C-alpha cells in the first residue's frame, strides 16, 4: 500500500501539538514578521504516528534481519546505549553551559578519550569530527597543518585504488593531488608501485587497514617506515577497526592518524544514514595539530579547552562533537570491556571466514587466503550465467536479506563484499550460506528471469534511477506549482 506524503494529508488549522498560552508581550520583530504562510501541512498526532510507523515498515533493519553490508559493520545496536544517552543530565545538556555545571559530561568525554587512546595505543584523540569522512578530513588537515607549521609544502597523497571514495575526496579538500597506488595480486598495496611513488612531495599515505578487500595489509609496518622515511605521514582509515579492536593497536603499526567510526566499531546506530561520529587518534608527531575543543583534567576537575595559541586544525564542528554518540560508544565499550572487545574482533573475523569457507567453492573469492572481518567475491562465479552482481543482490532481497555491498571495492569486477559482523549467530550464517548457494546454483542453471525481476516481494520493485537524475524532483509541490515546474 502507498503511504501519501504528509503534504497530501493536510487540513487547515489542524496540529499535533498544543502550546501553553505564554506571556503577553509587544512584538520586537520590527518589520520582519513573516508575511506569507510557510506551507506546512496540518496533521493530528495520531496521523503523524501512523504515517511514520507505516513508512518505517518499508525499511529493512538490523533488528529485523541479517544485514551483511560489507564495510558498513551493521551489527547489533544495544538499547542500553539508547537509554543512557537519554538520561536527564546527559541528553539535555547545553554545550554552552558553564563548565562547572557539566563536570559529568566532561568526565564522560575524558573517559571515552582514555578508551580510544588505550585501545589504539596512540597518545591523543580529537573527539569532535562528526562522522568517518569528517574524521578523515580532520586527520588530513592535521597532516597539512604539520607541514604548514614547518613551512613545508607537499602536493601528493597516496591512496590505494581500493579506497573508500571519501579518501580521495578528503585529500582533495586539503589541497592534495591524489596519486593512486595499485594493489598486488594478493589484494594488498603493491609495494613496488608504492615505493616508486614515494618522494619528498608526498604528504602522506591514506590506507584502510584491514583494507576494503577485507585483508590485513601485511606490509603495513614497512609502509609506515617508508612514508616516514620521506618525511610523510601515515593516515589510516579506521572504518574496519572492528576486525582488530582489542587484538592489534594501530599505534604499534606506525600510524600517525586514524579516525574511528563510532557508528561501526562501537555500534552507535546508523539511523538510516547518520548521525555518525568520527574521533581521530593521533601519534606524538601529529598530536600538537589536533583540533580543539579538548577536555583536560586538572586537580580532579575537568576543563574544556576551546582556544589556545597552537597551530592546530581549526574548529571542526559547531560544538564539542557528537556527544550523544560518545555516550552510546562508551556504554558499548564498558559493556564489552577489554576482554569482550577482543572477542568482538575474533568473532567478526571468525564469522567472515565461515561465510568465505561456506561459499568459496561456488563463488570464487576475489583473493586467496583467509579474510579478516569481511569476505570479498568477484562475479567470476556468475560468468556466462547471464546473472550479474546486482541481480544476485536483488534476489537476496526476496529471500529476506539485505544485500551485501556490491560493486565496491572498484578494483574487483562485480565485487560482492560480505561483512557478517560478530553479532550474528551460526544458525543465521548457515542459512545465509544455504540461500546464497541456492541462488548461485539457480543463476548457473540459467534461471535468469528471476534475477532480472527481483525483487518482487518488496514495498517497491526496481526503481527508475535515471529518471530521478535526469529530471530531479527533490521536493513536493502543490499540484499547480508542480505542473508549472514541469512546463
Amino acid at each position, binding site marked *: 500500500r502507498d503511504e501519501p506524503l504528509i503534504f497530501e494529508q493536510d487540513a487547515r488549522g*489542524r496540529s*499535533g*501539538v498544543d502550546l501553553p498560552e505564554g*506571556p*503577553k*508581550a509587544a*512584538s*520586537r520583530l520590527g518589520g520582519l514578521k*513573516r508575511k506569507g504562510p*510557510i*506551507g*506546512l*501541512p496540518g*496533521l493530528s498526532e495520531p496521523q*503523524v504516528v501512523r504515517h511514520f510507523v507505516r513508512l518505517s*515498515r*518499508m*525499511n529493512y*533493519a538490523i533488528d*529485523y534481519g541479517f544485514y551483511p553490508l560489507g564495510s558498513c559493520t551493521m551489527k547489533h545496536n544495544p538499547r*542500553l546505549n539508547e537509554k543512557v544517552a537519554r538520561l536527564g*543530565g*546527559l541528553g539535555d545538556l547545553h554545550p*554552552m*553551559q558553564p563548565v*562547572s555545571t557539566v563536570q559529568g*559530561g566532561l568526565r564522560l568525554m575524558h573517559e571515552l578519550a582514555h578508551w580510544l587512546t588505550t585501545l589504539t595505543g596512540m597518545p591523543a584523540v580529537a573527539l569532535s569530527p*562528526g562522522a568517518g569522512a569528517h574524521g578523515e578530513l580532520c586527520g588530513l588537515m592535521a597532516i*597539512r597543518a604539520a607541514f604548514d607549521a614547518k613551512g613545508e609544502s607537499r602536493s601528493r597523497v597516496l591512496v590505494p585504488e581500493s579506497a573508500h571514495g571519501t579518501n580521495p575526496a578528503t585529500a*582533495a579538500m586539503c589541497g592534495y593531488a591524489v596519486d593512486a597506488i595499485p594493489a598486488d595480486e594478493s589484494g594488498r598495496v603493491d609495494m613496488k608501485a608504492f615505493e616508486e611513488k614515494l618522494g619528498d612531495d608526498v604528504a602522506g599515505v591514506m590506507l584502510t587497514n584491514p583494507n576494503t578487500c577485507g*585483508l*590485513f595489509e601485511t606490509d603495513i609496518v614497512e609502509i609506515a617506515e617508508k612514508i616516514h622515511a620521506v618525511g610523510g605521514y601515515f593516515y589510516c582509515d579506521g572504518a574496519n577497526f572492528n576486525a582488530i579492536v*582489542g587484538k*592489534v593497536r594501530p599505534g604499534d603499526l606506525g600510524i600517525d592518524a586514524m579516525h574511528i567510526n563510532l557508528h561501526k566499531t562501537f555500534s552507535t546506530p*546508523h*539511523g*538510516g*544514514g*547518520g*548521525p*555518525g561520529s568520527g574521533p581521530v587518534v593521533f601519534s606524538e608527531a601529529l598530536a600538537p595539530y589536533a583540533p580543539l575543543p579538548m577536555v583536560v583534567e586538572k586537580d580532579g576537575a575537568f576543563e574544556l579547552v*576551546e582556544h589556545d595559541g597552537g597551530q592546530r586544525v581549526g*574548529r571542526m*564542528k*559547531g560544538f*564539542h562533537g*557528537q*556527544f550523544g554518540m560518545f555516550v552510546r560508544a562508551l*556504554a558499548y565499550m564498558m*559493556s*564489552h570491556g577489554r576482554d569482550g572487545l577482543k572477542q568482538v574482533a*575474533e568473532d567478526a573475523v*571468525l*564469522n567472515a571466514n565461515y561465510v568465505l*569457507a561456506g561459499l568459496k567453492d561456488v563463488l570464487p573469492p576475489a583473493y586467496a587466503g583467509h579474510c579478516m572481518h569481511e569476505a570479498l567475491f568477484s562475479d567470476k562465479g556468475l560468468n556466462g550465467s547471464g546473472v550479474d552482481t546486482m541481480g544476485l543482490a536483488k534476489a537476496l532481497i526476496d529471500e529476506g536479506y539485505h544485500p551485501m555491498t556490491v560493486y565496491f571495492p572498484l578494483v574487483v569486477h562485480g565485487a560482492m563484499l560480505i561483512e557478517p559482523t560478530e553479532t*550474528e549467530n551460526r544458525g543465521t550464517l548457515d542459512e545465509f550460506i544455504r540461500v546464497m548457494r541456492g541462488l548461485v546454483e539457480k543463476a548457473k542453471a540459467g534461471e535468469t528471469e528471476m534475477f532480472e525481476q527481483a*525483487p518482487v516481494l518488496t*514495498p517497491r520493485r*526496481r526503481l527508475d534511477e535515471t529518471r*530521478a537524475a535526469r529530471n530531479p524532483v527533490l521536493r513536493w509541490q502543490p499540484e499547480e506549482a508542480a505542473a508549472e515546474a514541469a512546463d
Partner: protein
Amino acid sequence: MRYLPQTPDSRAMMLKAIGVGSIDELFDDVPARVLNAPIEGLPDHMSEMAVERHFRKLAADNLSPSTAPCFIGGGAYHHHIPATVDHLIQRSEFLTSYTPYQPEIAQGTLQYLFEFQTQVALLTGMEVANASMYDGATACGEAVLMAHRVNKRRRTVLSGGLHPHYRDATLNLTRFTDFETVALEAAPGAEEDLAGAIDDDTAAVVVQNPDVYGQLRDLGPLAEACRAKGALLIVAVAEVVSLGAVTPPGDMGADIVVAEGQSLGVPLSFGGPHVGLFACRRKFVRQMPGRLAGETVDVDGRRSYVLTLNAREQHIRREKATSNICTNSGLCALAFCIHATLLGESGMTALADLNHRTAAAAAEALSAIDGVGLKTDVFFNEFTLELPKPAGPVVEALAEKGVLGGIPGSRLWPGDESRARLLIVAATETVTEEDIASFRDALKEALA
C-alpha cells in the same frame, strides 16, 4: 557477553569448518609482534546494571536544563520535544537501518528524506534542500565551498554577526583551499557595511539572521548588493524556529541558506549530534554537497523515492566530489521531520510566536534591572544584554543559584574586553514566567 551469540562450542565447530586450528591462524597476516599486545588500564566486561549506574552517576554530576531554568542559546536551543518524536525515531526500522542504498527496502527512509527536504525548502523559502549535513556550522562552511564552485571567484566575506563557531568552522573548512575567507567583526546591534566589502572577486557574503547577538535584519538590500556584484548571498540561521515568525531568507533574496535544525526534534545532547540544513536555488543543485532524495517510479510505475544526483558524491566522483560528506544526520533529520509534521503550519507559527513573546517578556524584565542595557532592539527569541560588570562570573553566580543564565561574551570572544560585559540570553517556550522571575531575581542579586 550478552551481545555475542557465539559460544565456545560454536566457535570450535566453525574453526573446524574453516579448516584452522585456532582463531589466531586467521590473524596470521598480522605481524606477530603486534598481535595480541596486552592492553592495560581498561576493565573487563560489565553488567548492564553496572554500566547504567556509571552513566547515572555521570549524569548526576551535571546541572540539567530540564530541571534548571535555561536561558542559554547561541546556536543550540532548549525546546520541548514531543514524546512522539523520540518514540518514532527509535523504531527499529529507522534506528538500525543503513543509508538507503537499496531503495526497494528503504522507501521509509527515502520518503521521509523527501518530506524533510520539502519542509526545509518551505521554511527557508528556498527552492531545494538536501537530506542534511552534520550541523549548521559545517553546513555554513560547505556553503562557502559551494559558492566558489558556482561562480569560481576567490574571496568570501563573513559577517561579524556570524556565530564565532560558524566562523571558525568555515575558516577551517576553507583553510586549505586556494581562495580567501575574510571574517569581519561587529558589535551587538551595530550595522555592518557588508555591501561595501563586496568586490568583483567576491564569491559570497555570509550573514547570520538573527545574528549571534540575536539581532534580526532585513537582508533585502544586502541581497541586492550581492546580485549587483555577482556574489552569492549565503544566509545562516542558527535558530530554525525563528522561521515560523520571521520573513525567511529566501524571501529576502538569499542564494544559499544554511541552518541548524536542532531546535526541532533534536535534543541538545551537549552539542551533538545536531542536524545541518542546506537549501539553495534550484539552478545550483548539481553543485550542492550531501545526499538528495528524489522522486521517481519503480518498474510497476508506482511513485517511489531514491537517492539521486549521486554523481556529485564521493562514492562515485571520488576526488572530484562536491564534498567528502558521507554519513550525515539521517536520524536527526527524521526527528526534525516528525516534529515539524506534528507542528504543522499552525503549530509552527504558534511555537515561533510563543518563543518570541517569551523572549520579549524576558528582555523587558531583565533590561529593567538597574545598569543592565538591552543591545538588540529587533530580535526573535534571543537578545544581548550589557551588564555593569563582566558577564563570566555573573553566569557562574547564576549557576550556583540554579539558573542557566545565558552565554557571557568571554565564552565566545575570549580575551576581548570590549565584549566581556555582554550576556547573550535566549528564552524558548520551555521558559515559564516563573523562570523569568527567578532569573531576574538571581541576576539582581548577582549584580548587587
